């Protein structure tokens, strides 16, 4: 009995590996899928190739007329198309033949795209891509492999598509792509920044010979974000007050954190000279 179960399991696994993702796996085509080039009828007349042999990046924009998200997508793509003019990027917009071609062309032109708008007769490309969602921007590499399938997003859509293209053009590396896809958090404030502010204020107070207040602010800075610069400034203030022994201690604390801190090096020298 266990043997039969094992064989059945192995058979199912083999079947999944052979037919699974390629036939009906996830909803849309996955990265690595080979996209076939084809000649497609253009709404402006004639025909156009879906892909181009001479491009490093292929951008397929599948949209539909009379839809807000498609309109937004076309506008964002139009701006990108303009921005990346002259680069080896092949752009093409695709619309299903279920829609009114004139309306689709008008929408595309209104958005400002210059790329050809072709018709997906019988929804064959839609079916192959397993599009499911429209609009979608599909990125394909120079070997005609699908590299990214970017569904519409309201926030940072252009940034994501731009980064995908730049990556294909080898203009950005993995780290830069990751940063574009997942931008760093824009913190409002940090302890380090607050510490730095107090330090700069202390420096201004030292300049104004307001030593006690300068020292107060240095202490606040040190509490928030201890740094060689803060210890060095503490030393400078103490030295200005004529408290060289205390100043030397502060300079030494600064030099322990940063042996090259210029203010601490100079301050130590001055204080040592005065002691002798």
């Amino acid at each position: 009995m266990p043997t039969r179960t094992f064989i059945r399991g192995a058979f199912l696994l083999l079947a999944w590996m052979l037919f699974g993702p390629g036939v009906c796996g996830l909803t849309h085509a996955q990265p690595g899928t080979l996209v076939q080039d084809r000649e497609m009828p253009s709404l402006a007349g004639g025909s156009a190739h879906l892909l181009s042999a001479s491009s490093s990046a292929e951008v397929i924009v599948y949209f539909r007329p009379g839809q807000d998200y498609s309109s937004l997508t076309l506008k964002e793509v139009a701006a990108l198309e303009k921005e990346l003019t002259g680069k080896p990027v092949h752009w093409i917009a695709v619309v299903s033949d279920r829609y009114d071609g004139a309306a689709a062309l008008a929408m595309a032109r209104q958005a400002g795209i210059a790329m050809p708008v072709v018709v997906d007769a019988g929804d064959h490309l839609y079916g192959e891509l397993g599009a499911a969602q429209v609009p979608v921007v599909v990125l394909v590499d120079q070997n005609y492999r699908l590299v990214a399938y970017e569904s519409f997003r309201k926030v940072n859509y252009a940034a994501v598509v731009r980064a995908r293209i730049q990556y294909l053009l080898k203009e950005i590396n993995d780290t830069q792509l990751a940063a574009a896809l997942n931008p760093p958090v824009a913190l409002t404030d940090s302890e380090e920044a607050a510490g730095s502010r107090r330090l700069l204020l202390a420096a201004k107070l030292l300049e104004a010979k307001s030593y006690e207040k300068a020292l107060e602010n240095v202490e606040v800075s040190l509490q928030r974000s201890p740094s060689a610069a803060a210890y060095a400034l503490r030393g400078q203030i103490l030295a200005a007050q004529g408290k060289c022994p205390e100043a030397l201690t502060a300079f030494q604390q600064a030099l322990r954190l940063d042996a090259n801190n210029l203010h601490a090096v100079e301050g130590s020298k001055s204080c040592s000279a005065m002691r002798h």
Partner: protein
Amino acid sequence: MSTHLICPSAACTPRSFSLPANRRTTNTLFRGFCLAGILLLSSTLLFGTEVPKRKGVVQPTVHAAIHPVVVKISDSRVAPVPASEKPVSYHAPFDSGDCSICHQGGDTQKPGPVKNVNNELCLGCHDDFHQTLTRKFSHPPAQKNCLNCHNPHNSAQQHLLLEEPTKLCLGCHNQMKMAVSQAKVKHAALTQGDKCLNCHNAHGANVEHLLQQLPMQLCLTCHGKDDAVDHAGKKLTNMKQLLADNPNHHAPVAAEDCSACHKTHGGSNFRLLTNDYPASFYSPYDAKNYALCFSCHEEKVFTAAQTEELTQFRDGSRNLHYLHVNKTEMGRSCRACHEVHASQQDHHIRDSVPYGSKGWMLKVNFVKSPTGGSCSRTCHATKTYNNTRTSAAEPAAAAAAPAKP
């Protein structure tokens, strides 16, 4: 109009400020100073006072449409807040009476003009804002002048803000003000905590709309907890947990874009949905009811009885989406079979469906196969579908041109 930017007509005595009394003591010479200051400030604001451009730093995207070039900064907005108004935040130099840090004079009663009229004065200490204001997206009022939003002395608001955040922001963002006030379904994020600043960084950000992070990361700070409730007190799903437990995420979720389906500033649909969507398990088919889903998904998928392209949920060419959904009575809404956020199974198929009024959940028993799948014993007896092509004609695509070698 007069201004405090150059010469506060009020004295700079911390916490003992009395506006009318001080205004009466203003002498003619000081008025002259003020007039000169106004002229200087006006020209500065008219022609823009921006953060100095640094070499090699990408200049941020700014959206000038909302903000006029001229921003009026009036006396009362930047004067020290009297003790009677219970200030809660204090600018360090003001608090310690060090007027000369910013002003040309050190006299706390008559500190005179400020040393510099533009943001450089502020950035002299707040140096981290050199970087903040050059983030990819920047807020024009912050670029122009810190005093558009902050009182340089003290404030009855946190962060030295001139007004409470919502009032301050909506003072310029009129369309948003209208949308927020007209929203039938409110979002607590706008009224609790730091309000607008819960999600937006009013100085500069790396995400569009000055969002501190991508939308979903922001949403999960509140919706990733067990104690979140809606406006009626009903417990809300811990989305962080749900997404962690269910690996198949709906595309907008995978793109971390909750705003594709939810109106984050308030709206007219339940759960702040951007468009209509049936709240019930059954719903007579009407495209209007599915406006939310059809803002991305093709309506044709549910109106074409036969297809070999539009959906993989078909038996041969018999469209099973059409079969389930397109009924005048008891049409299944999307939620009948799909989890809208995340699921254990592919195609966002839900694990179980609610049955009866006692909260029973019945297993859907969806089993995926290489050529389709099957569901069994819940809504109907076991039914299997096979989505391999039945038509002889292969897509033109494959035959038209060979793949690139």
